[in-house]
């Protein structure tokens, strides 16, 4: 498993509090039995009219093509538990999400998929967003070890949930192997509950 603790990439800011998973990936894209085709559905109804004509959404602006860090506001990813949302974000090409706060199920889904969720307070985030908007071609760089994100010569602090940070630092963000290792203990618990 590769470590995802240091990354470089360009950013794009999608404004709004409470951006819900229905907006991130509309329900009609949930008609699938694999996650492979989800990329184009990302923010679909915010980006295109029903006719297919572009609404000129920030994700479709030439300056932000190829951006790898998605920056947004508070309570990002609220709503449904659909893993289709982080899957679409990842398939679209994003490697990390930066926001003031995240809805919990979304946050957990991102972590398991290896998408770091960086938490950044309002003021620092506004400054970062301003820099990104002025310099869309410049790469940001973040390091989960030092909890610093930098752009040009400016550096900002971010935070992470401690267990999530640990999981990335120890490359154990996908917990399955560890869960399986405890199979013996699990069967004891199951037996004690009468579920053997």
């Amino acid at each position: 498993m590769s470590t995802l603790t240091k990354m470089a990439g360009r950013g794009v800011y999608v404004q709004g509090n409470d951006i819900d998973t229905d907006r991130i990936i509309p329900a009609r894209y949930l008609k699938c039995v694999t996650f492979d085709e989800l990329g184009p559905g990302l923010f679909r109804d915010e980006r295109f009219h029903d006719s297919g004509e572009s609404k000129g959404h920030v994700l479709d602006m030439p300056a932000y093509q190829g951006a790898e860090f998605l920056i947004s506001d508070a309570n990002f990813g609220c709503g449904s538990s659909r893993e289709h949302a982080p899957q679409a974000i990842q398939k679209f090409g994003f490697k990390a999400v930066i926001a003031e706060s995240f809805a919990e199920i979304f946050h957990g889904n991102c972590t398991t998929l290896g998408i770091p969720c960086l938490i950044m307070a309002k003021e620092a985030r506004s400054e970062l967003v301003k820099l990104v908007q002025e310099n869309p071609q410049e790469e940001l760089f973040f390091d989960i070890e030092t909890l610093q994100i930098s752009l040009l010569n400016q550096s900002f602090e971010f935070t992470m949930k401690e267990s999530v940070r640990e999981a990335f630092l120890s490359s154990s963000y996908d917990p399955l192997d560890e869960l399986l290792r405890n199979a013996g203990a699990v069967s004891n618990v199951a037996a004690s509950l009468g579920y053997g």
Partner: protein
Amino acid sequence: MVSQLDSGQYQLFIGLHLIHEVTSPQAFGMLSDKGLRVAYPGRTFATVDHIIPTTDQARPLQDEMAEKMITVLSDACSDNGIEFFAPNSGRQGIVHVVGPELGLTQPGMTICCGDSHTSTHGAFGCIALGIGTSQVRDVLASQTLAMDPLKVRRIRVEGSLSPGVTAKDVILHIIRTLGVNGGVGFAYEYAGKVIESMTMEERMTICNMSIEGGARCGYICPDDVTIDYLRNRERVPKGEEFDVAAGKWLSYGSDADAVFDDEVVIDGGSIQPTVTWGVTPGQAISVTELVPDPEELSGLDKNLVSDALAYMQLQANQPIAGVRIDVAFLGSCTNGRLSDFEEVAGYIKGRQVADHVRAIAVPGSEQVDLEARRLGLHEIFEAAGFEWRMPGCSMCLAMNPDKLVGDEVCASSSNRNFIGRQGSSTGRTILMSPVMVAAAAIEGQVSDVRTTFNLGAGK
């Protein structure tokens, strides 16, 4: 709890795992990619709800992708020895309606499902968690989940509710008060006189929408109401064994001297019939209020409110009562239980849905449908101008053919009013209680249930 993991998270044993066709088939693929099998197939149960049509459920379904999703799920279930509640089995329905009504949901259990409204099962004193597909994979493979510990906020609703005010109004009021992200990092424990005097169905409505308040889950401590509901359900122990189980279940409450990380007290008597005006469940007001004015706010709040008003095509300071509706939707895992239809039937008997309103009633499960038909409720609904449909999630998220068209306004008993939620990218949803949906359907506009049905205590 099994053990602590390297990351500091805890490994939680899952007593009951429910799966459905939208978020779970992919997990079986992930499992076989890793050469793994389902560890405890007897602890997992499957149903179809999201994509199932409510007019004609004959197989193969007309929608090829929907048919494929059901087939992949049912094949995976038979390959792995998982019980599948197929359409026409008498047990199919919305996953959060089926679990409780069969008695699969039992106090003290840890329950999960690849669906955020798993919080519904918390009504039975369960820790019930919505999870993503990779976690569905984890549970299938190991029957466990990696979890961070949660803080607990007790929400005491004291006093008593006025006529026309229902469980739905209580939870909309709570979310409005604490905010859509007020619950982040918390489990909500609901308590107090109002909650204690609620039926299990009402408690499920409350717990269902915990997730809409940002909480990871919500629960209510088990009591005699819980036990009475479970007695004689299909999947609970019988006879003496039930009494033993019941004794155990009743012991699963919070201790009288339990210390909570936070506590909120709400006066039940102050709660009015509540409706949403915006695009999150927290953007709610009482039916007698005016929609907010962005000019009175600042910063991002101002933008949020003005964007929401623009999307809903509402003016600042406009009364929400009187907003014309096009569609009335009764159903969903929030309010698609027998008691919801019984209550509404009592009000709409002998009345007529307004001419311009398309009104549908969608039972939450085959059992609800069967019982409602036995009581003749479907006839009352049809006589009033509602279509009585077959069970499923239907217009709650419109993954089946039931959708809003264009910018139609829907008075809905479901749980989410997100932009585009009901199948049209410009569709508008106004969340409310089932009796408020009935009032709106009859008046053709958002209306105060107390006035429409002469409940006396109006205003």
